[in-house]
């Protein structure tokens, strides 16, 4: 049996296990974002949005839909990997992979693919729900798909790093609560940064989620506050940077091996 075949089968095994996990507990993984996003559509889109009128040259409901889809994708991609990998560490079932000839890169890519699968699954659910509230345009489907996948990959890697360092379940809730959620809300999901004073516009440009939301919004509506090329460059740069760091952690056995 060639080492490459072993790695390919091991990768498929990890991905199958990850998808089976989030499908088994769909009440905790797929249903809550559907309910939360429906509430956002009703309250912010219908009730408040109808009084706001237009944002960025489009109807407010149509403006917030891309941001809400992106928010669902990144939080679910992150949450899937952080909770699954930490749970495996906690129950020590991570040792099943460590005693087997599974390369660290296979482990990382397998978990990240699982995170992307959940992020995309939730993204599709939220997109379908949004069709009930507004007509979704498609300006550039290539940009839409690429930014969704790259964002899900980046946040899955983030979730992985979080899980590697976490020593208790509280540790995997800290980053989503105190970092990702505030950055998402301040990342132009509900407003255009052009509404902000110049100083706060510059501060907002330090927020990586702003680039993801705006790039996806560009794919949907054709409007954006930032440069799309710059956004893609940053996404790829951080995927390579954090992916490399994750591999280094896995090779060292940080948080897993004594």
């Amino acid at each position, binding site marked *: *049996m060639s*080492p490459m*075949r*072993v*790695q390919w*089968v*091991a990768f*498929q*095994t990890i991905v*199958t*296990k990850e998808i*089976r996990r989030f499908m*088994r507990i769909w009440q905790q993984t797929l249903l809550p974002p559907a309910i939360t996003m429906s509430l956002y559509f009703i309250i912010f889109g219908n009730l408040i949005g109808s009084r706001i009128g237009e944002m960025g040259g489009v109807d407010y409901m149509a403006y917030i839909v891309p941001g809400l889809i992106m928010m669902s994708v990144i939080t679910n991609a992150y949450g899937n990997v952080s909770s699954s990998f930490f*749970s*495996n560490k906690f*129950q*020590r*079932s991570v*040792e*099943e*992979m*460590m*005693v*087997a*000839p*599974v390369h660290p890169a296979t482990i990382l890519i397998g978990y990240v693919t699982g995170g992307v699968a959940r992020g995309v699954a939730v993204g599709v659910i939220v997109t379908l729900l949004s069709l009930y509230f507004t007509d979704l345009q498609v300006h550039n489907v290539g940009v839409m798909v690429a930014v969704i996948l790259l964002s899900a990959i980046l946040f899955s890697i983030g979730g992985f790093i979080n899980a590697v360092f976490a020593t208790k379940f509280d540790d995997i809730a800290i980053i989503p609560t105190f970092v990702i959620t505030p950055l998402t809300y301040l990342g132009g999901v509900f407003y255009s940064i052009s509404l902000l004073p110049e100083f706060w516009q510059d501060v907002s440009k330090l927020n990586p989620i702003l680039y993801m939301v705006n790039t996806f919004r560009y794919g949907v509506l054709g409007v954006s506050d930032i440069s799309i090329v710059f956004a893609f460059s940053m996404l790829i740069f951080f995927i390579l940077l954090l992916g490399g760091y994750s591999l280094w952690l896995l090779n060292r*056995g940080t948080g897993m*091996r*004594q």
Partner: protein
Amino acid sequence: MVAALAVEDLTKVYGNGFQALKGITLEVEQGDFFALLGPNGAGKSTTLGILSGLIQKTAGRASIMGHDVNREAFAAKRSLGVVPQEFNFNQFEKVEDIVVTQAGYFGLRPHEARENAEHLLKALDLWDKRDQQSRMLSGGMKRRLMIARALVHNPEVLILDEPTAGVDIELRRSMWEFMVELNRKGTTIILTTHYLEEAEQLCRNIAIINKGEIVQCTSKRELLAQLTTETFVFDLNNSVADDFSLEGFPVHVPAADCLEVTVEKGQSINRIFEELSTRGVQVRSMRTKSNRLEELFVNLVRGDNK
């Protein structure tokens, strides 16, 4: 023939400065049923952890079937199955999924993985439980599940770290039969256990580790030959005095109807029966006070081996 397991000058110093292994050297031949014994904290689990890739060694070399565990980790891991001391599977996954997933980590295609899993789960009496979440299993079933999982890729060497801990006697005996059969078919087995009766019954060669050093590594026969005395317990039908004695044998009287007699190597116990019979003492039953290996083990780890 290449050794199933070879360890040379293996050292482990943990981050807190504790030296768990002080340069141990060990070799296990292919097809052996080998026991690694030692008190708690002696270094057994550290040794097994290094071999299975869960613990990083500080110095020295270790190989499985001739493959260095660091330089040729891929081949070394494929040759090895590990049954750890503590349960380390996902409590919410189904029994069959746990075994099939493990096979996938070793590169077995789903149909091969399912075939192997079915064979092992049937052999270990777990097939009826295949669709249950693993947390629903009893302690003994969980131990058997870990054995099935460790064997699903047909390893040449199997490490069993206290596989029968907390398992009832009947189940323990059926697990022994399974292990003996596995060994008979060619799998090298390395066992750690606190039940020295288990090691005495199953293993051909034994290493005793204490405070990170191998204090004895030899065949079971040679090890047991080192025993210079053995204590027998006689349960009596009638009572004897507290100061009861037998010529040539040290005697202890723990109760009026019980005698503990220490017999030196080479002495015949027939003499004890003759003497007791002459003095009208009737023996109801007789047993050894402790397992022979246990006696030797206690002496060795105490450092006062006679």
